[in-house]
Each structure stands twice: as C-alpha cells, then as structure tokens.
C-alpha cells in the first residue's frame, strides 16, 4: 500500500468525508509548519483535532483559506516571500498545540461556512475565536458602539464597521457555543449572548443614526424596546430582530419636533442594521409589532402608546408585549415605557374577546405548514417551537394576572416558573424543557452553517451528519440526530395535553399525589381561555368524571387531558363535555366502553369531536349510549344498505308480539342508524350524496318493516289468517325519499298503493280497499307515536286529490285517476316516484303504470310547459313564509333547492322520452345527464349543482349543529361558525358564509331563469 493510501485510510477513519482531498489539502503550502507530511501518527496532531469538528473537511478547507489570506498579506518583494507576521505566527502556534484555542478554531471553521468566509476576509479575527471569553451585555455594547465611532472605524464606513465588529463578536459567541461540553444544556446561555449582541448592534445602529442626523438629534430621547426573542433574551443565530420605538422630547423641545427627529433616528437605526453592504447585512429590523402595525407611526410617545393599548390593541399585541425589554437607547425612558405598559399585558386576559382572540391566535399558530415542509419543520405547525412558545405565553397571560412570579420574558424561565408555581406538572415541564432546548439547539446549528434564517431540518446525508456531530453525536450521527429529533418532537406534540389539560384534571380530581395545584379560580380562568364558555360547569363535569377510585375514573383521568383538547377545538366545547359526561355515566361501568376509548385508537377522538360539533348527535347518543360502539368498529361508519336493515328490523320486530313494541324496536334500530350516518357525516367519511342515500335507505327500511307490523295487526283485527288479507300493499317514495336525497329533517313523502289479490276468497274490492286503508292508518299511527328518537314524518299529500283524496288507492284506481284527472304538476311529482317498501311486484307495476306519464312520449306541449312555469311562479310568491328573506331562504328562495329541482324536472319531462339517462329519480343524477347531453350548458349545470349542494348541506348541517332544521342561512355568527365547520369551512369563517351562499344562489337563479323560465 502506498503511503498516500495509508494516509487516506487514516483520514477516512478520522471522519473526513473526502480523505484524498483532505490529504492533498494537508500538504498545501499554506499549512507548512503545521503538519509534518512524513509523520505517520496523527495522535494529538492537527488532523485529529480537525476530526473533532462537526465537518472536518470544511474545517480543513477553512483553515487553508485563512492561512492563505494571511500569507498573501506578508510584505514581500518579487522572488522573496516575506516573513510571517505576528498574527500568522501566533495562529500557527495556537494550531500546533492541543488546547482550547485549537479546539475553538476548529469547531468554528468546521461549523459555519459563513464564518469561514468572514475569517478568510478578516483573518486577524482568529484571536476572537481562540481567546474567546464569555461576553457580558455591557461589554458587547461598549465594543460595538466604540467600533462605529468616527475615529475608530478607519477607512470603513460606519455600516461596514458595524458589520465587521458584529461578526467579530459573533465569532466568540459561536466558539464558546460550539465547544461547550453539553450544547443542549448550554443553549440558554448562547441564546442570551446572541440577544445581548443584537442589542449591542441596535445601540451601535442608533449611534450611527444620531451621527447621520447631525446636530439636533439630541432633541429626541429614544428608547428601543426589544420584542420577540430579542426581548426574551433568547435569540437565534439568524432571525428578524423585533423592536418598538419609544420617543419623548428632550427638555424644552416640542413633541412634534421630537417625534420628527425620533422617526428619522428609527429609520436610520433600521437601515444601519439591515442594509446590505459589501460586508453583508446583520438582520432585518422589524418594527411591525408597534401600535397599528405597518400603518402606524414608527415612533410614539409613552402616552400615545398607552392610549393605543387602552383603546384599540388586540389580544395578540398584549401577548407580544409580554416579551418587551429595554434593549437600547435611553434606558430611563424605556423603563418608564415598560412601567406604563405592563399593567395592560397582565390585564389582557380580562378583556372582552380575549377567548375568541386566543382561539384565532391558536389556529394561526397551528395552521398547517406547506405539505412539503411539514415533516421537516422545527418551528411551525403543531408541536413546533412556536407552538411551545405560544402555549407558555398563553398560560402566562392567564395565570400571570394574579401571580407576578410568572412574568418572565424568557420561555424557559417562564416554563420553570409555571412548574414551580404548580401550574404545570414538574415532570411535564422537565420533559418540555429538554425537548425545547434540543429543538432550539438543532435550529441554531442549522442556521449557523450558512447564517441563514431557516427552520427546516436538512435532508441530505452530509448535512444531517454535520448536524449530528455538531451536537456531539459520533456514532452514525445522521441517523442518531433524526431519531433524537423525532423522539423529542413526539413529546412536544403532546404539549397541550401536558401544559393545559393535565393540571386541570389534577385540580378537578383533587389528586393529592399530583405536583400541580391549580385553585378552582385558576382552573376556571384557564378553561375559559381554552374556549369553554361555562367554565364552572365544565369544572363540575370534570369532577364528576374523574373523582373517585373506580376504574372508570382512573381511565378517564388519563383520557381527558387529551380529549379536552379535542373538545376545545370544536365549535361547542361545553356541550361536547356535557354529552360525554352523560354518556359516560350511562356506560362507565361497561367493560367494552372504557376499553374502546382507551384502546381503539381514534375512537376517543372521534367521540370528542362529534360531541363538540353536533347537538343532534349528542342528543341521540345520550338517548342510546350503547350506540357509541359504532365508533370503535372499523366498519362502523359505513351505512347499512336497505336490504341489510330490512333483515335486522324484521328479526327485531318479529321477536315482539305487540305491534307497538315491534315498532319501538324498529325505531330504536333507526336511532342507532341515524347515529351511524351522522357520525360518518361529521367525521367527513360520508359525502353529501351518501348521506341522502343512507337516510332514504333507512326510511325505506323503516317503512317496510312497519308495514309488515301493520299488516299483521290488521290481519288480527280482521280475524284472517296470516297472509290472507286479500290485497298486496306497496309504498312509493316521492320527493327526496324517492330521489334518495333525504336530509336529517326531511319527511318521507309517500304514496300508498294496493292491489286486491285475484281469486282471494271473500274479499271484494270494497273489502280490500277498507283493509288497505286500515293498514295505512295503522302504519301512520305506529310511526307517529312519540318516542325518544326524532320522528320520521310521513307525508302523503302528493296523492291524487291531495288531502281530500283517499289515503290509499288500488293500482286500477291510480290508473283511472291519472288517465282522466291528473294535472301536469302531478306528473312532475311522479318523476321522483320509486317503490321503497311493500310488495316488490306491485311496486314495479306502479312504476310501469306511471312511466308514460312522467316521461311523456314526445315531451310536453307548450301549454304544459307554460302551466309548470306558472305553477312555479305562484309557488315562489305564495309559499315563502311571511317575513322570510327571499334571497337567503334555502328551499324556496331565489336560486335555492326548489329552483334547481324544478329546472331539472322540466328538462326531464321534456326530454326523458328520448334520453333514457334522464329517467332517474335523483336530482343530481338527472342534472349530470342533462349536462352531459347538452340539455343544460356546463356553466349553468355547475351553478345549479353548487347552489343545490350548498343549500342541502346547510340544512343538514343546521340539524346536526343545533338539532333543529333552519330555513335560512344562519346569520348569527356562532351558528354560522358551527354550521360552517360541519360543512368543512375554516373555523371562524362564519361572517363569509351568508355572502358565499348569496353569491352561489344568485348564479343558480340566473341558470334557473335561463333553463326553467326560458328567459
């Protein structure tokens, strides 16, 4: 093996990614004197020192660059290289010896390409690395201010001088950070030093601004208030620096003049820090947290700030002020400002709209990040750094009102104080503390590499490897760092459970073993901030759910911290919690229930979300708690078909001898199925069309089973044998039942038809008619009885002669009536006729009978078309209830459900004879065919569909939300929010709901005008 080969192998073992290049570079003339190429051992030599860097290759290359620059500076005459100067000699000496100086140099060179670039331009700054000492806030401030003084900055401009000095000090901070034995523990120190350095730069920037302003600058006293991470003393390596400017006139100066000067100084300061020069820029200074944000004046007096916060400020502004800290400028003024402002911060939790604001703020924090980044984000999204910071600040605002010990501006100090005060559990706090430090450390190392503001975990192997090594992971660093990160991120994702809810549970359950100790008052304040409107009630529910030594209480104590978070996310947390309590009280001792909640993965979450979202589902569930099992079954959310239901209902009804009992059994199955459908709907597993079909199937099955019970009953009354009634009956579904587009509150529109059996002994047609009528009356009586479930209304008003006509007719009688008397609108109604129950053969014959009526050969005559239009026009003006708004009425309003259905039905009547696809009972299916065949143009069809679907969804969602149907788009903001969430709109989007419905229905009305009225 050649010598070079051996060296390469050794370099590879030392951790160089490119050993050949490393070996070449070590032979570089720039390193002469540092490495003896003939020396076989690396023990204690420079190469081994380099191998301890996060990125040894980078460190080596950086070293060559720095030394090259120094060499190039030697005073020389051609042909005679000059002697090394003292800088170079000392540097080489430092690098040749083991010790902290060398370790620091190597760590910085191997940790940040950006700082290597700086050292390559300013090699004399190596001493700041090698001889770094822990800086002080005052020291840094003095250094930077001195560096920008006119006399001190030499040929550099003030801006350049500031940048060079800032980076010089940054080298020291970085050197100490990268060589700390436990970087995760060291994080707060590094973050604080970075904040000091930023404050020092602000001070220097202000000095530059005052110099630029020239005489008269002293007319204004200016304080720079650090906000965000600067104010919190926990800054990143690269981050916007948030500030607020406070100005007051110097003595004898007018306020106007002072504000004028102050604005100029503020602008000057911001430019001094953020302008890009040949030496780069420091960071953007962001003053948008000031009153009125971007639109407000850049500087204000204390009185003006106070006036703003008294009147106009929003909750998030107070939350931001929690971090306010006097960073630069006139410290007396800054302190006066803080004294004036801090009462507002600590009273914020008592303001109107605090709760709503907090909800909106939380949504913003948790807003999902771009999908491509979601998996790599350290900062945004649930469980990101910002989530931790927000959660801690929220607790500070809620509890800091009464407890001054919680008022630290620094995240980790605040967390420690919360634990110390018993507001969060000690173990939880410790876990979070560690996780937060780790995530921040990773963020620091990632930013440090190129001094770029990024919060994304890298993906490439070399980047991950460097990152892992930079926090001291030596074995398989790339994998290890990802594992470590993910394990901590998992902890943080449970932050709300840990910080918000577990202490509440401890308080409610009065656990003596707990290390948290919220008072009743504190618990209520916290519940309110989290979105529970009736905090006292919620506390009672929690107590009832968790007190005691039962197995149920024990399991619920572990479940509820998580479930409370889900309740709080929904539109009505209080109702959700109450319903959960009632269900639990019914079922709490049943083994499978608790097991399901504990073990079935998503069951508990689904339950919490459904209960917090829908009064309808909650009411149903409270009445039949055992139905909660639907949620634990993977197939539970798939609606049953009518055939499946028919079997279940028949066997349930068959076990009862009493008709009333049989129908009660049928209805209880219906209740169970309604829950299944609403659960599936509320959890987004069942599209609108699926809901309509499932509800129609369910109604059909109920009718079928109840019809059988009624027949049996009449057979008994008439004293005939089973099956010897002498006539067959069928139920024809009309309207939304026939169209399989039912809503939760829809009545079942039906026609009843019978057909006397030929040759049945002793039954004349009159007897058959009488018995059929008895059956139908019995059916209506049985289903109409009040019970614990929502009633299924049976509406037979579409029958021939309407309310005045017989409730049931024979098939022959229907034929005669339709032949002689029927009006066009009755044919129109028959478009949606579909046999749903009773004798299938009879149903089929009925359908055959009406086929030529509803799909008339040759379409409609112009008179008939006119009749239908006229009828519709009358319906529009007469049926709309008094006082209802004709724009926002979902069914009868302009562009609403009726408009769409009549438009589609007119097309069906006119064209079904030669377009077989139109021979369907569903409005949406017929519309699709009408569009595909060009009978309704594409844009119109789209508008009609959109309006119909939105109107039906809103009607369904209103029933789910409050348990009762509504006629119009909800205008109450809370209702609009609750209903809007159910139909999949963003939380808090209530105000736009009505506007959106009006727009969609306006377009649908235009399509109706075009295709129905022909205008």
């Amino acid at each position, binding site marked *: 093996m050649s010598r070079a080969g051996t060296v390469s192998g050794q370099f590879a073992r030392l951790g160089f990614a490119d050993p050949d290049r490393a070996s070449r570079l070590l032979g570089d003339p720039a390193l002469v004197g540092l490495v003896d190429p003939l020396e076989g051992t690396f023990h204690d030599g420079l190469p081994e020192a380099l191998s301890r860097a996060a990125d040894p290759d980078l460190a080596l290359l950086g070293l060559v660059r720095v030394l090259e620059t120094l060499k190039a500076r030697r005073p020389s005459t051609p042909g005679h290289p000059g002697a090394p100067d003292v800088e170079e000699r000392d540097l080489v000496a430092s690098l040749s010896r083991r010790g902290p100086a060398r370790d620091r140099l190597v760590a910085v060179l191997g940790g940040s390409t950006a700082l290597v670039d700086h050292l390559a331009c300013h090699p004399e700054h190596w001493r700041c690395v090698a001889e770094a000492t822990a800086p002080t806030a005052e020291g840094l401030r003095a250094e930077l201010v001195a560096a920008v003084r006119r006399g001190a900055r030499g040929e550099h401009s003030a801006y350049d001088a500031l940048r060079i000095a800032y980076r010089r000090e940054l080298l020291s901070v970085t050197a100490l950070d990268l060589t700390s034995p436990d970087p995760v523990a060291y994080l707060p120190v590094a973050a604080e030093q970075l904040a000091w350095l930023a404050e020092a730069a602000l001070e220097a920037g202000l000095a530059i601004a005052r110099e630029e302003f020239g005489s008269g600058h002293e007319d204004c006293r200016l304080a720079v208030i650090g906000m965000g991470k600067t104010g919190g003393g926990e800054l990143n390596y690269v981050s916007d620096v948030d500030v607020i400017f406070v100005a007051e006139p110097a003595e004898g100066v007018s306020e106007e003049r002072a504000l004028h000067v102050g604005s100029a100084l503020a602008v000057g300061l911001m430019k001094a820090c953020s302008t890009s020069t040949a030496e780069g820029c420091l960071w953007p200074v962001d003053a948008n947290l000031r*009153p*009125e944000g971007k639109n407000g004046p850049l500087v204000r007096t204390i009185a*003006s700030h106070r*006036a*703003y916060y*008294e*009147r*106009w400020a929003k909750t998030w502004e107070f939350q931001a002020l929690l971090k306010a800290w006097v960073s630069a400028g006139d410290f007396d003024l800054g302190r006066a400002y803080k004294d004036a402002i801090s009462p507002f911060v600590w009273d914020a939790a008592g303001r109107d709209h605090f709760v709503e604001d907090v909800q909106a703020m939380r949504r913003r924090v948790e807003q999902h990040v771009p999908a491509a980044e979601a998996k790599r984000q350290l900062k945004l999204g649930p469980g990101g750094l910002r989530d931790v910071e927000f959660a801690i600040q929220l607790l500070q605002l809620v509890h800091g009102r009464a407890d001054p010990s919680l008022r630290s501006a620094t995240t980790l100090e605040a967390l420690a104080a919360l634990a110390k005060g018993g507001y969060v559990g000690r173990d939880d706090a410790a876990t979070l503390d560690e996780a937060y430090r780790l995530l921040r450390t990773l963020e620091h190392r990632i930013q440090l590499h190129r001094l770029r503001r990024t919060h994304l975990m890298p993906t490439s192997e070399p980047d991950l490897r460097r990152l892992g090594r930079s926090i001291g992971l030596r074995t398989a660093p790339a994998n290890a760092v990802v594992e470590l990160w993910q394990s901590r991120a998992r902890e943080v994702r449970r932050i709300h459970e840990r910080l918000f809810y577990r202490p509440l549970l401890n308080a409610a359950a009065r656990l003596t073993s707990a290390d948290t100790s919220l008072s009743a008052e504190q618990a209520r304040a916290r519940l309110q901030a989290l979105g529970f409107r009736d905090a006292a009630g919620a506390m009672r529910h929690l107590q009832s759910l968790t007190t005691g030594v039962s197995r149920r209480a024990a399991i619920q104590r572990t479940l509820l911290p998580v479930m409370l978070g889900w309740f709080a996310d929904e539109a009505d947390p209080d109702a959700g919690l109450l319903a959960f309590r009632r269900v639990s009280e019914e079922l709490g001792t049943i083994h499978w229930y608790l097991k399901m909640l504990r073990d079935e993965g998503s069951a508990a979450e689904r339950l919490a979300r459904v209960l917090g979202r829908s009064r309808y589902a909650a009411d149903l569930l409270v009445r039949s708690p055992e139905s909660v099992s639907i949620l634990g079954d993977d197939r539970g959310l798939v609606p049953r078909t009518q055939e499946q239901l028919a079997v279940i209902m028949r066997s349930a009804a068959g076990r009862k001898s009493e008709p009333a009992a049989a129908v009660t059994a049928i209805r209880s199955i219906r209740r169970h199925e309604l829950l299944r459908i609403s659960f599936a709907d509320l959890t987004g597993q069942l599209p609108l069309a699926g809901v309509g079909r499932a509800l129609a199937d369910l109604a059909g099955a109920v009718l079928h089973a109840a019809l059988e019970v009624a027949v049996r009953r009449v057979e008994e009354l008439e004293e005939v044998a089973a099956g010897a009634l002498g006539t067959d009956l069928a139920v024809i579904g009309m309207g939304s039942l026939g169209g399989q587009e039912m809503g939760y509150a829809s009545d079942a529109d039906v026609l009843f038809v019978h057909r006397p059996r030929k040759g049945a002994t002793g039954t004349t047609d009159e007897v058959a008619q009488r018995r059929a009528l008895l059956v139908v009356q019995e059916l209506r009586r049985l289903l109409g009885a009040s019970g614990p479930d929502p009633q299924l209304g049976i509406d037979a008003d579409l029958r021939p002669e309407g309310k005045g006509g017989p409730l049931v007719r024979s098939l022959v009688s229907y034929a005669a009536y339709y032949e002689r008397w029927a009006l066009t609108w009755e044919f129109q109604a028959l478009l949606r006729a579909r046999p749903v129950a009773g004798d299938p053969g009879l149903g089929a014959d009925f359908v055959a009978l009406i086929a030529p009526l509803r799909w008339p050969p040759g379409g409609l005559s112009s008179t008939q078309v006119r009749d239908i239009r006229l009828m519709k026009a009358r319906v529009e003006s007469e049926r709309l209830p008094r006082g209802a*708004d004709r*724009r926002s009425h979902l069914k009868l309003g302009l562009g609403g459900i009726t408009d769409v259905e009549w438009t589609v039905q007119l097309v069906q009547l006119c064209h079904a004879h030669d377009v077989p696809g139109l021979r369907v009972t569903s409005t949406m299916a017929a519309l699709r065919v009408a569009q595909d065949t060009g009978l309704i143009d594409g844009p119109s069809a789209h508008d009609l569909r959109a309006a119909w679907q939105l109107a039906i969804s809103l009607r369904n969602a209103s029933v789910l939300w409050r348990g009762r149907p509504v006629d119009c788009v909800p*205008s109450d*903001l809370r209702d609009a929010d609750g209903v809007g969430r159910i139909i999949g709109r963003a939380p808090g989007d209530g*105000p736009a709901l*009505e*506007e959106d419905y*009006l*727009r969609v229905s*306006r*377009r649908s009305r*235009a399509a109706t005008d075009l295709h129905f009225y022909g205008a």
Partner: protein
Amino acid sequence: MDRQQEFVLRTIEERDIRFVRLWFTDVLGTLKSVAVAPAELEGAFAEGIGFDGSSIEGLSRVYEADMLLRPDPATFQILPWRGENPGTARMFCDLLMPDGSPSVADPRHVLQRALTKAAELGFTFYTHPEIEFFLLKEPYSPGGRAPVPVDEAGYFDHVPHGTGHDFRRAAITMLESMGISVEFSHHVGAPGQNEIDLRYADALSMADNIMTFRTVIKEVALEQGIYATFMPKPFSQYPGSGMHTHLSLFEGDTNAFHEAGAPYQLSTVGRQFIAGLLRHGAETAAVTNQWVNSYKRLWGGGEAPAHLTWGHNNRSALVRVPMYKPTKGQSSRIEVRSIDAACNPYLTFAVLLTAGLKGIEGEYELPLETEDDAWGLTDSERRAMGIQPLPSSLGRALEMMEKSDLVAETLGEHVFDFFLRNKRDEWEDYRRQVTQFELDRYLPRL
C-alpha cells in the same frame, strides 16, 4: 386614544364646538347625519354609537337594526356654515355591526374593500373629479313652476356681477376652509351651469370630499337665496351635469399608467385598465349612472358618452386619454366621462376600480382607439367598428348589472341585491308615468 382622536377632542374644546355631526352615506349616495354632543364622542371613538339602521335605505335587514357608527377622526372638520355659532363639526363614520365587524351595507366599506384589493396588487387609486351642477333661481317643488337658471351665460363666460361668480367664490372659500382643495372653477355650457374641479386625492378621501362638496354647494346656494342641483339632466335643451373623473393608479411613488415613449405615454397597465372599464362599462352603468334621468343625459348627445369607446382627444368617448404634459411624468391619467354628478361616489369608484383591475389581472386587450365622434357615425359604421353602446335606459342598465358577477362581488351580495331592488322600483314607477311629451304629442292628434 390616538393622536388624531386627541386632536379632535382638543379642537372641540378650544373652538367651543357644541355639536358634532356624524356623517355616513346610504346605499343610494344620500348623506345621513346624526348629531351628538361632544361628551359622547370619546365613547363613540372607543365603541361606536348605536343607532337603528332599519329606517335607512339599504340597511334594512332585520337583524341589522342595531348598528354602530364609528367616527373616523381623520375626517374631522368644523362646518363653516353661516349662523352656526357656537360651532358644529362633522366626521365621516364607518358603519359597524354590533360585534364591531364592518357592516356589509356600508358604501364606505365597499370602497375600502375594493381599495384593499388594489393594495394587495400593489396599487393605490387616485381620483380627480370635475363636478358640474346647475344653479336655479328658486327651489323646485313637485308640480311647481318650471326651473329657471340663474343666468343665460355659456362656456367659460365671465358674467359681470353674475350670481354664479359670487356663488363660486363663496363656495370655494367654504370648500377650502373645510380642507377640500379646488383646482379650477368656471361657468360651463348651459345657462346657470357651473363646474368645480377638486384637486386629486386618494379615492376614499375623494369620495368623502364629494359628499361634503354637494352639501357645501347646496348650503352656499341656500345662503344666497338660490338653489343648486346635481340632477343629471334638468333641461332637455341644455347639456346635463356630469362628473368627469380622472383616474390614476400608483405603484408606490410611480404612476402605473405612465410609460415614457409609449403611445400617449400610456403604459400597458393603463391600457389594460381602460380595456377593463370598457368591457365592463355596460354592467357597471347602473352604478355610475343610477337614476332614470341619468340616461337622458347620456343619450342627449353633446359631450356625454353613450358608447363604450376610448380616444385621445375624443370628447364623445367613454374614456378619454388627456393630453400628456411632458413636464409631469406623474400626471398620466385617464378620464371617465360617463359618471353622473349625482352618483354614489363610494360605489362608483369601487366598481370603476374593480373593472379596471379586472382588465389588468385578465390582461385585457385594448380595442382600437376611436377617433371619430361616436355620435356622427351611422349604426352600420358603429357595428363595423365593433362599438357597443351604453345601456339606453335605467331598466336596460339594471338588466346588465343583474348578470354581473363583477358588480355583485364588488358591492357585496347584500348591497347588490338592495340596489337592484330599489332601482327596479324606481324604474317601474317611472314607467307608469304619462309624460308631458306624450300629452303634447298625442292628445292633439289621437
């Protein structure tokens, strides 16, 4: 409280203001006023002042009965009316819902929303109106004597000791004292007709200014014992009163309509903006020309535009690109000539801005310039040149507007719906009239 609010309260104290009028505008552009005592003002700034909106045109939805007025302190002005001593001041207000969110029925909010949309695209919108009006010898009462103009002069005529002259001087003094800068004022085409041009301002301030302007003009006329009217066409034999309005868009400090070296120094953005105005001109006409009488002016010939055309120095065009002044790169602008002096300026500016922005967003192609006087062309010529007319009547304009997503989205569904309903009623009422024309023409013969 911010500085502006403090300024208002201080001024009220120092100037002995006893009443503050809170001004707002209904959907039809009528100024509404609620007077409050200065003591109530601090509360009004903080929380707004409650009032029953159900009796105001266009605010009539039941659940909006309770509304709030929140004065905008930036609009504070002392009213210089004669005889109002101790003084009275006014502020324009935003209409709010009880929960503090803006009311959808507030025309000011409609314009603010459109301006926000422009701001999102990086534009600010400036307008500069030339407002025409007639001065009559006495107020008109329905069924009364025919209106008589105060003089018999013509365009730019200097009328010695003319009532109009005194009037304009008094009016301008009063306008200036209310912080509204006047650029130009002169006598125009018809007897008794005057024009006052306001110095350009951002569209929201300008709309406020126009509301103030109309009130001031009417007040000054009253003081002088005459009557001022902004009715679009009071005399069939004379030209009507329009509000030719110059529009410009700025991106930061640059005029987005200006491009050195382009034809008429008009940038692509400017061309697209005009294209948007033209393409959506018919559907927006009901807003820019909202009265039955407006269409008498548009179709009365002369300088009023009745066709969707543009041109350089073409006074029959809907949009005119005025002479560019080489020294003023920032002065590039376009002039829309259809607008009535009696429009609702908030809604009008909102629809014009949105139509223009639509042209920019959709990168509309600008049709060819029309150099001829559109009135002088035959129908066939107009057809050949692809020149579309503006609606011929309010009824026709409403039909066009009804189909317009652009207008619906700009006004918001509520205002859109109310506006249509109200205007349809007006059109119905008008159609039921038997006019003097019919009597004169038919009675003798039929």
